[in-house]
């Protein structure tokens, strides 16, 4: 297992902007502007109408190369990209979480798996593992909230591509993408039941949402529509589940240190938290080890 991972690390990542970067290094004076233009092009959703270049490139590549070719290349990159392998791993476990939460950090654009594009492929990978393992709910916490509504179609495309690699083009499971804060959602297949719900969370869904709820309750009480005695834990819980989503059973942080980064405080009450000290990647091994640890842990609330 470990050698495979090492191999994976050494595979050079395709760097579409490399030409621009080298140009910048050779002659400094004129290229400052050049670089700025480039930054704006990839700039994370500053211009809503034009989709980022990187995303457009990725989607055209998929069409050209075709599924078969890309699938074999994909297998090389991801040795575990087969639902059977994952299911075998999961079948050994005594219990699996119903809801999985993950904290993924947005990396710099010029790093491997960096930028929005990298984030989207990481989300697609994690979703595929969840679908293979039979976990119906996945929440992704990325604190800057870079994935806004206009990225949903691109994320969907990325996910379809990845899922085709896992399940084959004619058996892509149905999934729903949702941004908790704005309540925008996109479902892959309208009439079929949803196999996986992917909810995107950001810092706004944490403390600011509790502030917002408090404000609303304050206003309601002012107009005598709500009594102070009506505010109970179950009411607050109901509202926050409605606004943000339920608490995950297992929370995986794909980073070497535990750093909750203002994760929604209401949604972390009893979640089992998992991270690995040496890990900086969104990798299947961390995912499956987290599930293994979860299946061993015992929950007894207060007893």
């Amino acid at each position: 297992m470990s050698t495979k991972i090492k191999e994976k690390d050494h595979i050079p990542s395709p760097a579409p902007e490399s030409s621009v970067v080298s140009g910048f290094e050779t002659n400094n004076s004129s290229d400052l502007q050049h670089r700025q233009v480039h930054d704006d092009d990839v700039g994370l959703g500053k211009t809503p109408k034009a989709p980022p270049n990187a995303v457009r490139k990725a989607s055209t590549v998929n069409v050209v190369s075709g599924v078969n070719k890309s699938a074999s290349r994909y297998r090389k990159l991801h040795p575990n990209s087969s639902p059977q392998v994952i299911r075998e791993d999961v079948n050994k476990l005594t219990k699996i979480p119903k809801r999985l939460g993950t904290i993924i950090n947005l990396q710099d654009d010029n790093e491997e798996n960096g930028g929005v594009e990298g984030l989207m492929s990481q989300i697609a990978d994690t979703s595929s593992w969840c679908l293979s393992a039979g976990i119906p709910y996945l929440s992704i916490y990325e604190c800057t909230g870079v994935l806004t509504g206009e990225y949903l179609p691109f994320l969907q495309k990325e996910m379809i591509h990845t899922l085709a690699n896992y399940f084959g083009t004619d058996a892509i499971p149905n999934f729903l993408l949702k941004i908790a804060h704005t309540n925008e959602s996109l479902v892959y297949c309208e009439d079929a039941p949803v196999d996986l719900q992917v909810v995107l969370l950001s810092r706004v869904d944490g403390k600011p949402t509790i502030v917002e709820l408090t404000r609303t309750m304050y206003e309601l009480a002012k107009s005598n529509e709500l009594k102070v005695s009506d505010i109970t834990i179950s009411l607050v819980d109901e509202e926050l589940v409605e606004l943000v989503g339920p608490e995950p059973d297992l929370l995986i942080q794909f980073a070497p240190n535990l750093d909750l980064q203002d994760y929604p405080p209401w949604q972390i009450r009893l979640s089992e938290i998992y991270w690995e000290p040496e890990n900086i990647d969104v990798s299947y091994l961390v995912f499956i080890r987290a599930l293994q640890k979860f299946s061993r842990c015992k929950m007894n609330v207060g007893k």
Partner: protein
Amino acid sequence: MLEWISRFPGYDHVLGSIKTIVGNIILTGPVPRHVGLIMDGNRRYAKKEHIELREGHSLGFESMAKILELLYESGVECASVYAFLIENFKRLSYEVEWLMQLAKDKFTQISNQGELAEEYGIKIKILGNVKLLPKDVQDVLHQSEEMTKHNTRAVLNVCIPYTSRDEITHLIQQIVAHENEDDEDEDDFFIDESTISNYLYTNESPPLDLLVRTSGTFRLSDFLLWQCVDPHCAIVFVDKMWPAFTPFDMCKILINWGFNNYWYGHSSGFVRRKQVKDTV
């Protein structure tokens, strides 16, 4: 383990001086201002060591006293301990009774003799939904709070019976009730994250810098959730059961915390992420 050493004369004195020395060493680096402790594993420890449950709980208390001593010696301003969570009332009635009795005894002891409180000038604060406790325990707690309220050196927050969700609900109630009190500044009353922080039970304490949970459980169990998701707070999970958790272990955690802060500029160690601006 090395119990025979403790029979030597002057052992306590030596131990005391070592603690002071170590505390002074830690003082040279950055020190967390506010430390939270989830003291988990008393019962599992008792089971493992084949001693009575009640014994496990009182060993847990002794362990707490030792850890607190080290913390205050190292310059920590405030410690919050999770003594009893609201869900603990679901335990068997006789165990709840023991715990209440233990709390009563120990707090009476603290108020009467004031070992810990007097030596370190510690102010005791009770956080939580005190109304749920039996009347006599409430009285003792209030008494100890009252007796130590003039102490200024450090603060001990005893969370009994506490849960974070209860705290948040409670503060929403208070904020909503705010309008009924004074009508004048009604329009000026603006609610944001700092308003909420002001209404938390921990409003008088510095922000939480370090949270330690023992017994190898990787959960927060409804303790100081609002406070500990803060990017500046480091969360440390320890495998040892609480009664087996020694000042030496705590010392390692404190040094590690100080090192991370000094070296990486972040209490959790090297953290690579983009900074976010406040969106609200």
